[in-house]
């Protein structure tokens, strides 16, 4: 096939990195899933036949939200550090990201514990319970998956196996983590601001 003439040979042939394209696609697909859950949450707002209502039981998790959102910054600077070959800074910022994400997860766990044990409020209590636990739980699930992947990378990094040559892949993972944070902005707005 090389017999085919190549008049475009002068310009270098570059195409986007497959990992980034695939992650962008995954984010589009996940956004559609979250959209459906957000629509269900908004649709059922105030339609529960029994209590409790969001205003009665929900408290705004300001601190843990700040934790999660700032982890977007740390993961960004971590991958930037790796790109420039600063492995120490990368490892530190990466660990900080994991800690911040873990703190957020702890916040959700504490909130759910309070709701279940103090208010007796579960996923089967009413429509609010069903939609609240599903939406926040779906996001929490994504945080857990993200933390698992971050931790795997961290373990490899401790073994000295993550270098600047992996920065494109690290960039893909950080894209996912940014997405998890962006979803939280939507969930937070819908559940804790509009929904209360």
């Amino acid at each position: 096939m090389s017999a085919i003439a190549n008049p475009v040979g002068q310009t270098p042939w570059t195409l986007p990195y497959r990992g980034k394209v695939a992650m962008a696609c995954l984010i589009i697909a996940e956004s559609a899933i979250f959209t459906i859950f957000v629509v269900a949450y908004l649709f059922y707002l105030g339609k529960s036949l029994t209590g409790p209502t969001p205003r009665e039981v929900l408290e705004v998790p300001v601190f843990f939200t700040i934790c999660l959102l700032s982890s977007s910054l740390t993961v960004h600077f971590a991958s930037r550090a790796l790109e420039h070959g600063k492995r120490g800074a990368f490892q530190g910022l990466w660990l900080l990201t994991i800690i911040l994400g873990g703190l957020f997860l702890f916040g959700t766990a504490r909130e759910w514990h309070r709701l279940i044990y103090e208010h007796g409020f579960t996923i089967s209590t009413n429509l609010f319970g069903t939609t609240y636990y599903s939406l926040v739980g779906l996001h929490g699930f994504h945080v857990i998956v993200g933390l698992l992947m971050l931790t795997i990378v961290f373990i490899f990094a401790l073994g000295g196996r993550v270098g600047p040559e992996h920065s494109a892949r690290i960039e893909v993972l950080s894209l996912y983590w940014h997405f998890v944070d962006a979803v939280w902005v939507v969930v937070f707005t819908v559940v804790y601001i509009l929904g209360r």
Partner: protein
Amino acid sequence: MSSDAMAIQAARAARQPWVQTLHGWVTTVDHKRLGVLYIAYALVFLVIGGIEAAVIRIQLIRPHNDFVSPQVFNRMFTMHGTTMIFFVAMPILFGFANYLVPLMIGARDMAFPRLNAFSFWLTAFGGALLYFSFLGGSGLYGAGNAPDVGWWAYAPLTARAFSPGHSSDYWTLSVLVSGFGSIGTAINLIATILCLRCPGMKLGRMPLLVWLNLVMSGIVLIALTPLSAAQIMLLVDRYLGGHFFDTQAGGSATLWMHFFWIFGHPEVYILIIPAFAFVSEIVPVFSRKPIFGYPVMVGATVCIAFISMSVWAHHMFTIGMNSYSNTFFVFTTMVIAVPTGIKIFNWIGTMWGGNLQFKTPMLFCIGFLFQFLVAGLTGIMLGAAPFNWQLSGSYFVVAHFHYVIVGGILFALFGAFYYWYPKITGRMMSESLGKLHFWLFLIGFHLTFDFMHIPGILGMPRRIYTYEPGRGWDLWNLIVTIGAFVQGVAILIFVANLIISYFNGTAAGNDPWDAWTLEWSVPSPPPVYNFATIPTVASRRPMWDLKHPEDPDSIYE
């Protein structure tokens, strides 16, 4: 015996013991083998779904028939619909996309070969799960076996109270699992098309099949995921006591309908766009002309993709939406006919003045053109809300969408089988058996689905397991059932042709159709690595350029 035939014989003689062959197929990450696996898997389910259709038609052949019980009838139409959409149409189209896209863009494999295998096995597992319900569906309650909630699975039919046992769980899980498989394949296709094109293969030079599969994958990302979300909600309802679709607790059955059809209507385009893709490759080759209006074809496809996201509630006119919603969805449904019509004009424009060769693939494509036009016209009829109020839920609707799926998608698929079988196996399919298959299937199709419109207009509802005599439906149902069996015989001829041609077909050589896309530049069947050296292209028809160096396309584009 030509040297090509001897090469095939030699390749086949050099086979390993069957255990190793099996191991090779199960652990393969090669896009061509996975494509063949997808297609073979879908063909098995096509036979199963066809048998279910036959049971439905035997039951309805005359009034007060008691071939099967009402319960079994419900299971049959549920399994028929679910099987044909999720385990026949999607996998078979993904199979062709898997096989052809890397070859057409000059790549050696998909972007993520292991994700590719994972997606296939998810889909395969989903199908197995659905059919395991025949054994495992009764669970502790001893109630029912296979799912019987219809392929829409409307709430509250799927609630615990109305669907005890596990039959609905099997339905939900199998659709969810195969949906994840489809999303994986869609991501893989997009990454492959955007990132692995050979040098010179700009977006504007990609074969239309590649373009249309790119658009189809985009729709999968946006439209299949709402179904996954709705299935997760249904699982929450059934397993965790949630109330999403529990009307007793304020939940809404209408919300399920919206979520289902937000997936359900774009799904039609997920299936028909790859069918468009086959026709767009086959019609030019057998008209000996390049495709007419390439950029318009791409633009129309992208238009269809966008509009398809906003037409879903035309499946729900009878639930009582307000007049603004009705007007909006009537309008969008009418508008989507415009880009679709443009495509039909372009295919006819390609054939116009061409040196037409009526080989079997071309015959199926011409059948597709006429039947898809009729299917589109009944679609316009059903898209008008007042007409829809009269005929929604009747056999007219069943006739309409089978016209799309069988008359459109399946005809294009058969064309694709006859066109690419030589590339996949190295042997031609029999033309005489192919023509017999075409004419018999055409007759059976029209007997069944033309006449199915009439009992619909006369008021026969879908999903009834029997009917009273004397309503004027008897004769039509008899004809429809006879047509179904003619189609069954035609399918058997097709399967026989697949098998006989594999052993006795004439050797195909690299390029039996004198075609223009890159897959015909490599041997048939292609080697594992596809291209010994990655090709470079300079126009939309690289093989034309190669064969006609004195007058290449590249100087005109």
